[in-house]
């Protein structure tokens, strides 16, 4: 196991572990359902076709929702937008965070101070509250939600990336490349960035989970993706009152959100362990030999 194609190798290694495989399968299953779902809906998801909170029947296996729409169809159609928005928000957040984190770590001093001040300010806002704040005046537009969630991810990612990047910037190989006269930008992209990929991969997984949670929560509060579009978060809220009559309308979307986030979290955890494992052989050998890798000076 070596540094070659670090990102890919780690993902594969993670997928091979028990936890990783389980997580990956779960995520794949739900993603498949969400993406293919809208194509196989038995009934139009936004039309009332049965009774309010109707009990499950052969024609409507999951019964009816709060205004008599087919729950199954809405479940099938209600996932893809959530996942796409979450993916976009994650990309923005992680991308921004990586750039900020590396810049702060490498440039240090003033840049670091300023960026970390900005990070502190944004971190003071709970992510959901931040999204609510932005949505309050401009309205619940998809792009705005994605932007708000993405921006609120960036400081957290920046902090994590900065911590790793700081340690890397201390290492002599960065000094040696600087001695060659390499300009700063190339040092950051060529030397620092490739060495933070394992941390970034884990963050991608974590942030994606959070994005789903926040966007679903927003929809749940009625302030996210607006009706009548089918939407798991919104469905949970809409059908709360009918919990006693037709629990499926609430239980199924709830379960789906829970399942994909648990699966994602499990896979991300497997990634985290796998990237540790890539560095472990050297550690294990040292441990076994009983000699620390410490060096006399």
């Amino acid at each position, binding site marked *: 196991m070596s540094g070659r194609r670090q990102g890919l190798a780690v993902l594969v290694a993670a997928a091979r572990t028990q936890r990783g495989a389980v997580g990956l399968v779960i995520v794949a299953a739900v993603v498949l359902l969400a993406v293919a779902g809208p194509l196989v809906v038995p009934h139009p998801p936004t039309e009332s076709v049965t009774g309010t909170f109707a009990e499950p029947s052969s024609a409507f296996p999951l019964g009816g929702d709060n205004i008599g729409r087919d729950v199954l169809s809405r479940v099938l159609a209600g996932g893809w937008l959530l996942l796409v928005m979450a993916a976009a928000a994650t990309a923005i957040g992680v991308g921004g965070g990586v750039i900020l984190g590396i810049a702060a770590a490498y440039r240090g001093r003033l840049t670091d101070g300023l960026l970390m001040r900005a990070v502190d300010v944004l*971190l003071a806002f709970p992510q959901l509250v931040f999204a609510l704040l932005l949505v309050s005046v401009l309205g619940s537009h998809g792009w705005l939600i994605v932007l708000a969630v993405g921006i609120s991810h960036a400081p957290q990612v920046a902090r994590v990336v900065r911590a790793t990047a700081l340690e890397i910037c201390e290492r002599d190989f960065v000094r040696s490349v600087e001695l060659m006269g390499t300009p700063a930008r190339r040092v950051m992209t060529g030397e620092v960035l490739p060495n933070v990929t394992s941390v970034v991969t884990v963050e991608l997984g974590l942030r994606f989970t959070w994005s789903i949670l926040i966007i679903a929560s927003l929809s749940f509060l009625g302030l996210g993706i607006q009706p009548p579009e089918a939407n798991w978060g919104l469905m949970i809220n809409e059908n709360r009152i009918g919990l006693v009559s037709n629990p499926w309308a609430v239980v199924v979307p709830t379960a789906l*959100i829970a399942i994909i986030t648990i699966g994602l979290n499990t896979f991300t955890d497997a990634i985290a362990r796998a990237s540790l494992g890539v560095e472990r052989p050297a550690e294990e050998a040292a441990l076994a030999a009983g000699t620390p890798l410490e060096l006399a000076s």
Partner: protein
Amino acid sequence: MSTGTAVAERGLIRLQRLGRTHPVLRLVAVRILLGVLTLWLVSIVIFAATQALPGNAANAVLGQSATPELLRAVERQLHLDEPLSQQYLSWIGGVLHGDFGTSLANGEPVSEFIGPRILNSAVLVLVAGVIGTLISGALGVLAAARRDGWFDHLSSVVALAITAVPEFVVAIALVILFAVVVLHWLPAVSAVPPGSQPWDDLNALILPVATLAIVIAPYFFRMVRGALIEVLEADYVETAELQGLSRRRVLLFHALPNAVPPMIQVIGLNLLYLAGGIVVVEYVFNYPGLGAALVEAVTNRDVPVIQFIVLVLTAFYVVVNITTDVIALLFSPRRRGTR
């Protein structure tokens, strides 16, 4: 040089000397100043998000019924025709004087009805925070002490699962389990009638508190476990063991004190999660706190209320952060100066 500046200069020199002889005091002071700066910048962000963006508040308030004359009238009422900096100063000046604006939804001054809300949320956060932290902390210590044992593995898996699940799912699951579908022990709604205190009906508090505690428990558990494990692997713990000291003494006297500083900073993070968590939890349980008020305000585009609540929540976080940083500083003799 006037006497005024001379006095100020002397005071400054004395302060500097104080700072040099008492490095800890200096660090604390710096930390507090930074916190104030952060808070000020936060207020600017809140203001910008609500009043400086295109599609102004007046539009939002009037919505469909916006005609040009009505728009202008509302704008004048909300002072939206003044330059931005003026608007900001009047808002922040008001806040510092206790004038938190007037709600657009019910026309009352915010300060009048927000008090009980703050209290309700505070009780919720405090109780959930204490219970969640204590339980998860204890579990974390246990898991670290018996690392790789069955308890460790089980609790890690459970923690992983819980962190993945959104708060409303936890809330609804608890409602389904204990209130509506499976068992019927507890109320599904925790409305606190106006005028009464949240602790008057403890039954109503149980589910919201439980939800919040469950939501934050796994984070704190993980961090406590991680911090303690890192300490347990340290050389000085091995040395203590090799000196023949008992396992209990090594754990309590050598290991734990070194694990405390990182744990304290995590408590701060925990409280931040709580501040975010109350939004959904209060909404689900109809609990009259800040979170539910925020949702209502956003739904109604009630800008002054939104501004104030977000300010309270963020100020809460900043203050907690400063406190935990200072406590952590005082606890770690070596880290003073390294951050």
